[in-house]
C-alpha cells in the first residue's frame, strides 16, 4: 500500500485501507494534550515537532477539536485556524484530524444548524478526517456535521461511543453502526470511541469482531485511553480482530490518561505480525527526543493525581476530562474527597441518570452532579441548568432508560410531569442571524472580522473577542516558546530572551530592572533589539486585597437575595443578562445566567419585583458576593 497522504480522494483512502491486513496510526496529539496537559501544549511545541511528525508517516495527526479550540483562544492565545495553517505549511502530507462533538461542535451545548454548517465548512478547509460523536449516540445530533463533512469532500469518521455495563452489548453497538450507515452511506471510517479507556482487551476484541462480522468492509478506527495502563492490550485485541487504524501518542508526553505510547504499540503488534504501515520508527523516536526537552515547561498542567488510574473502570471519567476534574478538585479544595466522589457517587449518579456515555458534555453533567451531591450534603438538591436540560431530553432521548421519578421531582418540583410534558424533548434551535453576528463582532472589534474570526466568535463569543483584543495588543504570541510564555515568577535581571516573530524577524530582548513609580506603578525596563523600552505596569497587590475583603458567606448572599439584592453565589462568568432595568419580574424568573466550570447556572429571583439596577454585563467575571441585580421587591 502507498502511504496515504493529504489530498487523496476518500475512495482512494478507503481502498487503500481496505486492502491492507496491517494497520495505520493516528497520532493523537490533541487528545494527549487535553488528557494529560489540560490542552495546554503550545503551537510552538507542535511546530518544533512538525517535521519529525511529518516524516513519521502517520495516517493522520489529531491536532484540533475537542476542547482545544476553546483552550486555543482562552489560554494559549492562538488562533485555531492559524494554528492549522502553520502546521500545514510544515506538514504537507499528513492528514489532519479533528474531534467534533456533533451538534455541540467544539463546545458544551447545542449550536444552531446554520452555525454548525458554517463552522464545519470553514474548518474543513484544513481538516481532512472528521471524527464526530454524540454523547447520547443520538444520530440526529450528528447529522448536519455528517452532511457538511461529506459535502466538503472530507473523510467522515462517525463514532459509536463505547462504555461498559449490562446495556452496552455487542448487539446494541452493531445495531447503532447500522443506523449510522443508513445516514452516511458506506464510504466512512467507523470509530469505536473509548474515551474512558473502558473494558478489557477481550471486550474490545469481541466488539470489533462483532462489527466486522456484520460489516466486513468496514474500516474500524479504535480510539482508546491509557488511563488504566492497559490500552495497548485493547489496541492489540482491536487490530487482531480486524480494526485498521489505532490511536497512540508520542511517548515523551505520555504517562497519565491520554493515549498510550506509539512506539509500544508498534513494538507489541510487530510480534503479532502486524506492521504499522508507512511508519518511520526513527522519526517517531526523534519526535519524542524533541518533546522531552519541552516537557518540564508543562509540568504545572500535569495531573495532580499521579500514576495510572485503573479505577476508571468504576468511575468511567473520560481521559480528556481527567485533568480538568482534578484541577477543579484542587482549586475547590476537595481533592481529599475525590475517592468518595469517583468511586461511590459518580458510579451511582451514572446509573441513576441512565448509564449513558461519560463524555462531553454528558461527562461534565455527571461530574458536576456528583460533586454537588457530595459537597452540598443533599443529593440532587441543587440541579444545574444542564442537568435539567438533560432530564428534559434536550440533548436527546436517554438511550436505555429514563432516570427515576424522584430525580425529576428533585429537579423540577412536584409538578415535574407537567414540566417534562411541556418543555421536554429536543429543542429546535433557531438559526442564528449570522450577518447580524458579523456586524456585532465588527462593532466589538472595531474592524471587519474575517470569516474565520466569525466562526471562532460563534463558538465562544466573549472568549473570542478577548482573544482578538489580546492579539491586537500583544501580537502573535504563538512564536514564544513555553519557557517564555509559561514563565512563572518573572525572569532574572539580565536574562536574554530570543525569538522569531510571525514575520520571520528575529528579536532579542534583555530583561532590565523594575522600578517603582511615584504613583505606585511599576516600570519594567526591557532592552528590545538593542533599544531600551519601558513598560508601565499597574501595581497589583492592592487590587487583590480589595477583592478578598468583598467575599461573602453563602448565608449572607442568600439573605441579601430575599431583599432583592442578588449577588453572585460563586465565581463565574456572566454569559447572559436576561432582564433589563425597569422590567417587572415574577418569583422564579431567571435574571442572569452564570457559567462556571463549563456549566450554566441561572440566577433566579425568589420574589417578584422590578429590576432597579443591573451591575454586570455579559462577559464579566464575578466573584462570590459581587453585585448582579438589584430588585425593588413588590409589597
Amino acid at each position, binding site marked *: 500500500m502507498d502511504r496515504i497522504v493529504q489530498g487523496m480522494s476518500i475512495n482512494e483512502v478507503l481502498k487503500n485501507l481496505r486492502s491492507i491486513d496491517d494497520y495505520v496510526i493516528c497520532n493523537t496529539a490533541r487528545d494527549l494534550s487535553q488528557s494529560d496537559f489540560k490542552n495546554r501544549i503550545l503551537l510552538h511545541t507542535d511546530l518544533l515537532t512538525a517535521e519529525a511528525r511529518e516524516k513519521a508517516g502517520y495516517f493522520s495527526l489529531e491536532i484540533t477539536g475537542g476542547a482545544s479550540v476553546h483552550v486555543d483562544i482562552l489560554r494559549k492565545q492562538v488562533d485555531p485556524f492559524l494554528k492549522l495553517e502553520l502546521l500545514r505549511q510544515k506538514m504537507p502530507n499528513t492528514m489532519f484530524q479533528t474531534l467534533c462533538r456533533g451538534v455541540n461542535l467544539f463546545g458544551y451545548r447545542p449550536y444552531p444548524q446554520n452555525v454548525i454548517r458554517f463552522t464545519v465548512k470553514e474548518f474543513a478547509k484544513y481538516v481532512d478526517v472528521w471524527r464526530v460523536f454524540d454523547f447520547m449516540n443520538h444520530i440526529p445530533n450528528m447529522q448536519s456535521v455528517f452532511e457538511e463533512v461529506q459535502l466538503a469532500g472530507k473523510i467522515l469518521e462517525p463514532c459509536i461511543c463505547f462504555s461498559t455495563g449490562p446495556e452496552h452489548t455487542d448487539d446494541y453497538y452493531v445495531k447503532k453502526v447500522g443506523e449510522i450507515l443508513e445516514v452516511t452511506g458506506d464510504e466512512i471510517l467507523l470509530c469505536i470511541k473509548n474515551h474512558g479507556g473502558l473494558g478489557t482487551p477481550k471486550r474490545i476484541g469481541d466488539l470489533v469482531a462483532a462489527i466486522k462480522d456484520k460489516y466486513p468492509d468496514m474500516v474500524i478506527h479504535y480510539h482508546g485511553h491509557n488511563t488504566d495502563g492497559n490500552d495497548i492490550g485493547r489496541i492489540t485485541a482491536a487490530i487482531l480482530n480486524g480494526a485498521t487504524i489505532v490511536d497512540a501518542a508520542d511517548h515523551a508526553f505520555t504517562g497519565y490518561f491520554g493515549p498510550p505510547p506509539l512506539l509500544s504499540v508498534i513494538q507489541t503488534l510487530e510480534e503479532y505480525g502486524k506492521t504499522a504501515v508507512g511508519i518511520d520508527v526513527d522519526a517517531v523516536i526523534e519526535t519524542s527526543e524533541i518533546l522531552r526537552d519541552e516537557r518540564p515547561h508543562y509540568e504545572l498542567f500535569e495531573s495532580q493525581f499521579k500514576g495510572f488510574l485503573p479505577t476508571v473502570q468504576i468511575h468511567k471519567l473520560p481521559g480528556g476530562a481527567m485533568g480538568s476534574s482534578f484541577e477543579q478538585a484542587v482549586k475547590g479544595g476537595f481533592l481529599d474527597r475525590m475517592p468518595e466522589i469517583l468511586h461511590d457517587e459518580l458510579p451511582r449518579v451514572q446509573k441513576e441518570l441512565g448509564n449513558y456515555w461519560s463524555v462531553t458534555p454528558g461527562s461534565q453533567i455527571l461530574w458536576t452532579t456528583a460533586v454537588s451531591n457530595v459537597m452540598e450534603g443533599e443529593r440532587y438538591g441543587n440541579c444545574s441548568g444542564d442537568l435539567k436540560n438533560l432530564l428534559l431530553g434536550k440533548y436527546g432521548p436517554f438511550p436505555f432508560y429514563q432516570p427515576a421519578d424522584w430525580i425529576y421531582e428533585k429537579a423540577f418540583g412536584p409538578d415535574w410531569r407537567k414540566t417534562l410534558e411541556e418543555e421536554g424533548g429536543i429543542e429546535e434551535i433557531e438559526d442564528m442571524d449570522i450577518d447580524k453576528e458579523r456586524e456585532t463582532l465588527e462593532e466589538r472589534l472595531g474592524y471587519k472580522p474575517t470569516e474565520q474570526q466569525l466562526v471562532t466568535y460563534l463558538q465562544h463569543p466573549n472568549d473570542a473577542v478577548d482573544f482578538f483584543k489580546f492579539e491586537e495588543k500583544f501580537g502573535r504570541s504563538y*512564536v*514564544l516558546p513555553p519557557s517564555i*510564555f509559561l514563565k512563572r515568577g518573572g*525572569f532574572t535581571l539580565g536574562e536574554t530572551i530570543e525569538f522569531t516573530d510571525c514575520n520571520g524577524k528575529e*528579536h532579542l530582548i534583555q530583561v532590565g530592572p523594575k522600578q517603582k513609580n511615584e504613583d505606585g506603578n511599576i516600570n519594567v525596563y526591557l532592552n528590545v533589539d538593542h533599544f531600551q523600552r519601558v513598560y508601565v505596569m499597574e501595581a*497589583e497587590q492592592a487590587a487583590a486585597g480589595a477583592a478578598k475583603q468583598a467575599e461573602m458567606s453563602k448565608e449572607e448572599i442568600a439573605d441579601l437575595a430575599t431583599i432583592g439584592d442578588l449577588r453572585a453565589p460563586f465565581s463565574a462568568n456572566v454569559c447572559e443578562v436576561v432582564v433589563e432595568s425597569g422590567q417587572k419580574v415574577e418569583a422564579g424568573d431567571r435574571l442572569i445566567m452564570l457559567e462556571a466550570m463549563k456549566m450554566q447556572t441561572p440566577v433566579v429571583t425568589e420574589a417578584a419585583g422590578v429590576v432597579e439596577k443591573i451591575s454586570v454585563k455579559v462577559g464579566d467575571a464575578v466573584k462570590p458576593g459581587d453585585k448582579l441585580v438589584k430588585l425593588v421587591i413588590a409589597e
Partner: protein
Amino acid sequence: MKKKILVANRGEIALRIIRAIQELGHIAVAIYETPDSAALHIRVADEAVLIGDGPRSDYLNIDTVIKAAKNHDVDAIHPGYGFLAENPDFARACEENGIIFIGPSSEVIHNLGNKVIARQIMKEAGIPMVPGTSNLSLGDAGLQEALDFAAEYKYPIMLKATTGGGGRGIRLVENDEQLKIEYPVARAEAKAAFNDENVYLEKVVVKPKHVEVQVMADRFGTTVHLGTRDCSIQRRNQKLVEIAPSMIPDQNLLDRICDTAVKATRAANYFNAGTVEFLIDHDKNFYFMEINTRVQVEHTVSEMVTGIDIVRTQIKLALGKKLAFAQEDVQLRGHAIEMRINAEDPQNDFMPEGGKTVSVYRSPGGYGVRLDGFVYQGFTIPEVYDSLLVKLTVFGFSWHETVDRLRRCLKNYVITGPKTTIPFYLNLVNDPDFQKGDFDTSYLETHQHLFDYTVDVSEVNKLARLIAEIHHKKENKYAA
C-alpha cells in the same frame, strides 16, 4: 577671524545655527533656561549660559540675553525664529551694545512687523495687496469703518491685530452681527497679547494657497530670491508641511511672484534673510501678506532645492560679506518636502504631549534625507515650550520620488513615549490630493479622513509588552 556668536534660541533651530557657526569656524554660545538643562543644544555648543529658570520669560528677556552676550564677549547674536527674533527692541539693543544682530536692522523689523506700516510701504511700491484698512479708529467709529469696509468688499473678512504674528490675534468674521461681537474682543485680545490694541481689517481670500519666497539681501545692493515654498498645509494658521518649490503648474506666475518678492524686499530696504508671504487665490491672483524678518522653520526645503546654506549665508552677510551668488547662480533642482514632527496628538486636536519621555528614538536615514531635530532617546520633552521634535526634510528629483521617500522615512521612524504627528503624516502622504500636489489652506478641513488612523505598533513591541507583563506579574495568567 574667529568670532563668538550667541544663539538666542533653543530646540532644533539652536542646533541648526550652532552647526553653521561651527562649520564657519566660529565659536557658538548657547543660552538656556532651567527646563532646558537636558537639551542637546547646550551639549553641542562651545559655551553655554544658564540665563534663568524661565520658562520662556528669560529667552524673551532682552536685558538678560544682552547681559549674557556681553559677559561672554559675544560678537554677534543669531535670534533664530520665535522668541526675540522679530522684536525690533532686541535688534536695537544689539545695535546699541555693539553686537551684530544677524538679521535686518531694527528699523526694518519695526516697519515690517507693524502690518499697517508694512502695507503702506508695499502699496507705494505697487505690490498687489489684499484689500484692507489702516488701523481702525478707536471706539464706535472704528466699528462703523469696519461695517463700511465689509459692505464694500463683502464677507468674509479678517480682523487682525496690527502687532502680531504666528497666527495669533486673527479672527474670521462672516457677518455684521459677528463683527459687532468680535470687534471689541479682538481689541482686548490684541492689547493683552501684544500690548497694542490696534486692529485692522482685511478681505478674506477664500481657500488660498500659501506661497512664500525666500529672499537674501546683502548690504551692497544685491537681493536674490531662492524660489518659492508652498506652506498651504496648516492647522489653525500654523504650518505643518512645507514644500519647495510650489507645485502650481504655472512657471510664469511663480516667476512673477518671485520678482515681486524681490521688489518688495528692496522697497523695505531689506537686509539679510527674509521671507515674503503671498496668498494665491483660485484665479491665480496673488496678494502680498507680510515679510517675515527671520529665518523660517521651513528654510530647509529651500536649502535642499538650491544647495544654498541659508543660515551660513545669514552669518556671513551679517559679518559684512557680499552675497557670494547672483540671481542667475540660483538654480532650482528637484523637490523638497519638510514635515514638522511634533509631539502632539492629531486625533485630539493636536494636543501637545509635553512632559513625556522619548523612550525609543530611531530615525530614518539614507539618500535625500535630512533631519533637523534635538530629541534623543531618554529625553523628556519640556512641557513649557513648543512641541516641535524634529523636522524631517526629504529631497528627490521628481515629486513622486520625493513623496515615496517621505513615506519610507515616516515608516522608518520610531518614536515611542509621546504621541506624534507621524501616523497622521503617513495618512497624508497616501492621500491622492497630496500625491498630486493639489492642496490649499483648507486642506485639513476638507480631508478629515487623514485623522482616521490607528497607530501601528510593531510586532516585537507588542510581544515585548507581553513579556514585560509575564515578567512583572506574580502569577502568569497564561500559565495558570
